[in-house]
């Protein structure tokens, strides 16, 4: 049957469409049968009845056949919806974007009533500026997102998704045709399949005076003290002059000592130019070079250059040398002893605060290990934390974390990006008994782009800082809720946090009129739970009103309130926010539009209630767990400690080497994470908790062995990495020599590439010859790609394995958005041809015919009508039966009706007249009024008589003739005492006598 359906498709007859028209063929068989059968079976019927029955029967059969064909009523759309996709990327000059807006505003005038216009802007992402409606009269670009990329396919996809279903759709793509992501041609074929023609408005331009720095060529690796040759490839479209500047790790290099400025004057010829300089590499570590071209300015205008965004080139060289370890601490006293002891072992140590930690992988790659000493997570940006994790996992770096009151779970690292890299679980187990904190978050609207998303991120960050034993609740204003200021998540124990995270996803961030109801609820909730630290965080733009007397209750119950003012209205009217924090001992933050700070602040604030994760007390003796691992080699016992941060064992390959306390909590542990290694020591490295350790002879050994175990094997001077740009890919060649300078015959590489967007991919290296390996990776996004390859090769003399790490970095300095020097109208023309669209002339908006109907497939809405048709058929079938079974003679019916009406009227009149006459007669005889009579016997009143036919009422006259004095005489009683027949006969006799008397 399905084959039939496909073969016939649907059949349209007038406004009706049959989805299974093959069933209609049944009519050809059934109708003759009906005729044949009807001729014999209906022979008994005569005249019109027969034809009526015949007709009804045919209609029933036709209707039933039609029902099987699944009929639908069709309604075809008449309107056209045009969605304009406007390229808002940086490659399109502002002047052209304004011309597009003007074009559209003129061209949109030519539309019929009901036609709709929508506007989408597209750059890196596509945004709907106006859904297709009749009301759009002008073009207004609001939020266009990141404009340093172009994904035209994204815009076309969004156009197809937002097209109304009840109008024919057209697309209008106004662009330069230069796309940096996605495939316009691919989605154009989807648009063609959907029957949506895309008209194109090519935005033509050409930079005839442009200089762009194509790439920098710097060696991937170099030796300490080596002179590096740095080359820059420059393309110029015309003659140009200017200065080239070069920096290394942000420091300017004087590459032209004879010139007064630090830059070197260059005269560029049209075409490719190569600029080359030799640079002293200096100490070990990554060297990031940046070359920048500044065009000569004449009469206030650059000569030979138009775009400045493509005047930069970057390159990285890893200079090998002895490994270094980085110690990060806020207070130098946290690491003073540790650093002194490590330096005494000959390790190279650098000390910095968290804010100076490199924000990119390249910067971290210069260290073999990084140790965080009593560092809270809020000292680091999300990017830093993420890069630390990637530094270990992808680059093979070592990470150590030592304890203190601001570290581990107490430092807000629970659920942080790096928590999964640690060999301990920072959240204490459920069975652990400890005081807990209670936190209430009051969330108000965040008036910023993606405010709801940001708000949820903030709430999640706060929850991430808490342990499963803590209590947390969230209050917000939701006008559509039964109680507008209410708990989104009631104050309760967090557990696995899944419940509160679901609540966070439901946050609506309503426009709260007043803080008061939320504060009352928070106060009531916090005073009804048993918690050590009770705290409120308010996130708001600061404009809800506040009744300040409410704050007195918080002060009385020792509940702190911290307020975070975000997206404030110019910083005005924040008095209430400041007041709440000042009065309760909380903190007031005004972050304005520095949204990135909000998460950090909330995290820090939430962490205030996390003090319960710290164990402090009299000295306890940690027990050493025998493991035979390198960090604890030859250490059989450690001195007692007076404090540590509570953590839990982690499943997997984590090795716990020290335990302490009644609960046998882990104090030291280590493991391998990705390419790198991580160790944790939950007590500190100072006199605070490890006072007995400072005089311990094993202190140096303990920390040195942990650090050296974690450190990445030093980059071997025998490894050379060469990278080469090959279009969208980077080719990697590694040359490896042994200590004698001989090429390694075999070796195993494990390599990963950390990408600029935060991800990482494994890199497959294939041996292509003795001591030579090759591979490649995709590198088409702007940013820095860092390659790390850990290798192991058997030594030629059969000794220990040769181990080491090779590193390299490849940088694409600017987005492809700025590479194009002219438009790519050819692509747009191809899209128009493919989809059946037109190429519009930007200079002729009047003749654009935006809402042109030619070539459009008008959408059709269908409504199934098989059920009403079936019911009608059933009704007709019943009518057919009725006509045949019940003989209906219209003439007879009419005659009967006439008779009935006439006789009833006459009878009624006669009866009433007789009654009235009898009543008059009775009055004359007895001289009594009706009321008196009614006292003696029942009598129907006049009105009832008039309404109700009473039959032959002349009989009543007999009673009225009776003398009142003898009313009770047994005359009637006697007669009535007889049987029915005798009473009837007597009555008949009396009636006859009365009639004779009357006459």
């Amino acid at each position, binding site marked *: 049957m399905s084959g039939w359906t496909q073969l016939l498709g649907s059949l349209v007859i007038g406004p009706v469409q049959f989805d299974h028209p093959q069933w209609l063929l049944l009519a050809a068989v059934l109708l003759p049968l009906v005729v044949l059968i009807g001729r014999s079976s209906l022979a008994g019927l005569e005249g019109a009845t027969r034809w009526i029955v015949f007709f009804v029967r045919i209609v029933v059969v036709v209707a039933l056949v039609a029902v099987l064909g699944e009929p639908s009523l069709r309604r075809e759309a008449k309107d056209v919806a045009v969605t304009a996709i406007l390229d808002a990327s940086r490659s399109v000059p502002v002047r052209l974007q304004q011309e597009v807006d003007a074009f559209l505003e003129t061209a949109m005038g030519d539309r019929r009533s009901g036609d709709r216009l929508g506007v989408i802007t597209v750059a890196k992402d596509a945004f709907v*500026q*106006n*859904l297709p*409606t009749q*009301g*759009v*009269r*002008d073009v*207004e670009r*609001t939020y266009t997102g990141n404009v340093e990329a172009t994904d035209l396919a994204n815009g076309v996809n969004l156009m197809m998704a937002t097209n109304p279903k009840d109008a024919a759709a057209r697309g209008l793509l106004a662009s330069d045709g230069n796309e940096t992501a996605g495939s316009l041609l691919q989605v154009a074929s989807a648009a063609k399949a959907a029957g949506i023609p895309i008209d194109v408005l090519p935005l033509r331009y050409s930079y005839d005076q442009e200089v762009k720095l194509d790439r920098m060529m710097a060696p991937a690796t170099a030796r300490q003290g080596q002179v590096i040759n740095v080359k820059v490839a420059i393309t110029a479209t015309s003659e140009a002059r200017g200065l080239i500047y070069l920096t290394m790790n942000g420091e300017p290099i004087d590459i032209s000592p004879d010139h007064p400025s630090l830059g070197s004057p260059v005269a560029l010829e049209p075409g490719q130019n190569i600029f080359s300089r030799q640079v002293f590499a200096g100490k070990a570590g990554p060297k990031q070079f940046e070359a920048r071209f500044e065009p000569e300015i004449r009469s206030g205008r650059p000569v030979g250059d138009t775009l400045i965004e493509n005047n930069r080139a970057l390159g990285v060289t890893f200079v090998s040398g002895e490994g270094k370890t980085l110690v990060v601490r806020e207070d130098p006293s946290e690491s003073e002893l540790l650093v002194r002891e490590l330096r005494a072992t000959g390790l190279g140590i650098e000390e910095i605060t968290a804010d100076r930690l490199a924000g990119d992988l390249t910067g971290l790659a210069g260290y073999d290990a990084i140790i965080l000493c009593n560092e809270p997570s809020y000292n680091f940006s999300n990017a830093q934390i993420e890069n630390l994790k990637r530094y270990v996992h992808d680059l093979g770096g070592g990470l150590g974390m030592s304890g203190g009151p601001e570290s581990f779970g107490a430092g807000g690292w629970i659920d942080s990006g790096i928590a999964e890299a640690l060999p301990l679980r920072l959240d204490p187990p459920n069975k652990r008994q400890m005081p807990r904190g209670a936190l209430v978050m009051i969330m108000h609207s965040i*008036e910023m782009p993606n405010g709801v998303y940001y708000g949820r991120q903030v709430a999640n960050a706060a929850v991430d800082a808490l342990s499963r034993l803590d209590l947390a609740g969230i209050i917000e204003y939701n*006008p*559509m809720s039964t*109680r*507008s*200021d209410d708990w989104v998540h009631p104050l309760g124990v967090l557990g696995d946090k899944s419940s509160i995270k679901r609540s966070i996803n439901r946050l609506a961030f309503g*426009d709260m*009129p*007043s803080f*008061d*109801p939320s504060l*009352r609820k928070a106060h009531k909730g916090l005073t009804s739970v048993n918690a050590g630290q009770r705290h409120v965080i308010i996130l708001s733009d600061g*404009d*809800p*009103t*506040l*009744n*300040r*007397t409410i704050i007195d209750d918080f002060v009385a119950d020792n509940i702190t309130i911290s307020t975070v003012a975000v997206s404030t*209205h*110019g910083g*005005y*009217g924040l*008095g*209430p926010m400041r007041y709440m924090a000042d009065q309760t001992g909380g903190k007031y933050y005004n972050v304005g539009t520095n949204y990135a700070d909000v998460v950090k602040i909330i995290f820090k604030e939430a962490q205030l209630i996390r003090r319960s994760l710290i164990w402090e007390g009299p000295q306890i003796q940690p027990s050493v767990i025998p493991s035979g691992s390198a960090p604890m080699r030859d250490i059989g016992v450690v001195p007692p400690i007076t404090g540590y941060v509570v953590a839990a064992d982690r499943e997997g390959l984590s090795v716990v080497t020290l335990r302490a306390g009644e609960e046998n909590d882990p104090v030291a542990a280590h493991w391998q994470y990705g390419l790198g290694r991580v160790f944790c020591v939950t007590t500190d490295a100072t006199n605070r908790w490890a006072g007995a350790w400072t005089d311990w002879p094993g202190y140096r050994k303990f920390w040195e062995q942990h650090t050296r175990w974690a450190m990445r094997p030093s980059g071997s001077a025998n490894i050379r990495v060469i990278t080469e740009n090959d279009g969208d890919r980077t080719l990697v060649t590694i040359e490896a020599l042994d200590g004698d300078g001989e090429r390694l015959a075999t070796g195993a590489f494990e390599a990963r590439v950390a990408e600029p967007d935060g991800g990482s991919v494994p890199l497959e290296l294939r041996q292509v010859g003795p001591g030579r390996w090759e591979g490649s990776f995709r590198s088409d996004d702007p940013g820095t790609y860092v390659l790390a390859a850990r290798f192991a090769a058997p030594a030629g003399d059969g000794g220990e394995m040769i181990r080491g790490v090779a590193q390299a970095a490849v940088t694409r300095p600017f987005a492809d958005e700025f590479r194009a020097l002219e438009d790519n109208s050819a692509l747009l023309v191809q899209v128009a041809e493919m989809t059946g669209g037109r190429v519009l002339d930007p200079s002729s908006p009047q003749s654009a015919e935006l809402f042109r109907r030619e070539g459009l497939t008008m959408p059709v809405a269908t409504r199934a009508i098989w059920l009403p048709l079936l019911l009608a058929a059933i009704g007709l079938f019943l009518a057919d039966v009725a006509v045949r079974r019940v003989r209906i003679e219209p003439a007879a019916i009419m005659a009967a009706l006439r008779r009935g009406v006439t006789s009833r009227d006459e009878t009624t009149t006669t009866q009433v007249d007789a009654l009235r006459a009898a009543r008059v007669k009775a009055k004359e005889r007895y001289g009594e009024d009706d009321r008196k009579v009614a006292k003696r016997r029942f009598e129907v009143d006049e009105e009832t008589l008039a309404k109700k036919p009473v039959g032959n009422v002349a009989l009543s006259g007999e009673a009225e003739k009776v003398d009142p004095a003898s009313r009770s005489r047994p005359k009637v009683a006697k007669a009535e005492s007889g049987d029915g027949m005798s009473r009837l006969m007597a009555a008949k006799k009396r009636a006859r006598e009365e009639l004779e008397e009357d006459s």
Partner: protein
Amino acid sequence: MRPDRKPSLAVLLGVILTLSACDGRQSRPGEALVAIDTIGSVGRDPGRFDYPRAMDIGEGSLWVVDKSARVQRIDPQTGECLAWFRMPRFDRGKPTGLTIAPFLDGSPVIYVADTHEQRVAVFALATGMRERPELLASFGGFGEAGGRFIFPTDVAVLEDETGRPERIYVSEYGGNDRVSVFSADVLRGEDGFLFSFGRNGSGEGVEFNRPQSLAIDSEAGELVVTDAANHRVGRFTLDGELVSWIGTPNEAGTGAFDYPYGLMLLGGGRALVSEFGASRIALVDLSAGEVHSRYGVPGRGAGELSTPWAIDAMGGTLFVLDSGNNRILGCRPEGLSATDLAGPGP
């Protein structure tokens, strides 16, 4: 007209009026409003709204300001936008109050409580699309001193017998929570500050917690104020003395009102109040201090309300600014006559 027909015509008229009053298009207390008009929907093109927060009626039109900082003039019959302009500055926030009232020469102008710019801006009536009319006056500025504002919310203009402004009342919150009174001189660029009354609080005295709307009851010679976050409505003399409070500053929903935001006086000591928190309309007997009836239910459907910020009437129709649903609902609440809802006239 023949005299003998008068009685029959009067009866006929009475029947028609009775029938019209009893038809199904009236909004009954406690039920969703029966919308006889729904104007606008969400959007930023003319005739649509992006969370509208203030509305007034003047010159036969509805004037609405929304969260895209656009002031639109809307034809109440067709729902079309007749004119619109964007506020000159809005990066710090958008206005929440708008009043059509006379300027110095008696002609109607737009008073905008430019909340987050801490000022009152007075514009000529808008006549074109996207064309900002002349800024006739601007006063205020951030501060706690007299004549300055933190978050101004509404403006009410007391007219003299010639229809020119005599006094200008401005409500505000954000710590100042008060009503400031200016003479008409402030419209001439002079320091017209006269006095202010009220302070932040919830006491029985002259204390406000977000006074959101103002209206001058010319019959009673009083100023009516919705004290939104105290969930009450206050009657004051024109010199700022408290006459009475209606409602108590309890938690939202337990008192007479639930965040009363919009206010419209009906005459005869009655007023309509739109309750932002409860998404409904209250008919209040100001003299008796009682809520007589409530109309509307919260929701997103036809006739349902979501956080109504403002309310006004014209031509026998009550217009509710249904902010959360980005629309204006026109309705006829049962118990209110066409005279009650006549509005200011063209």
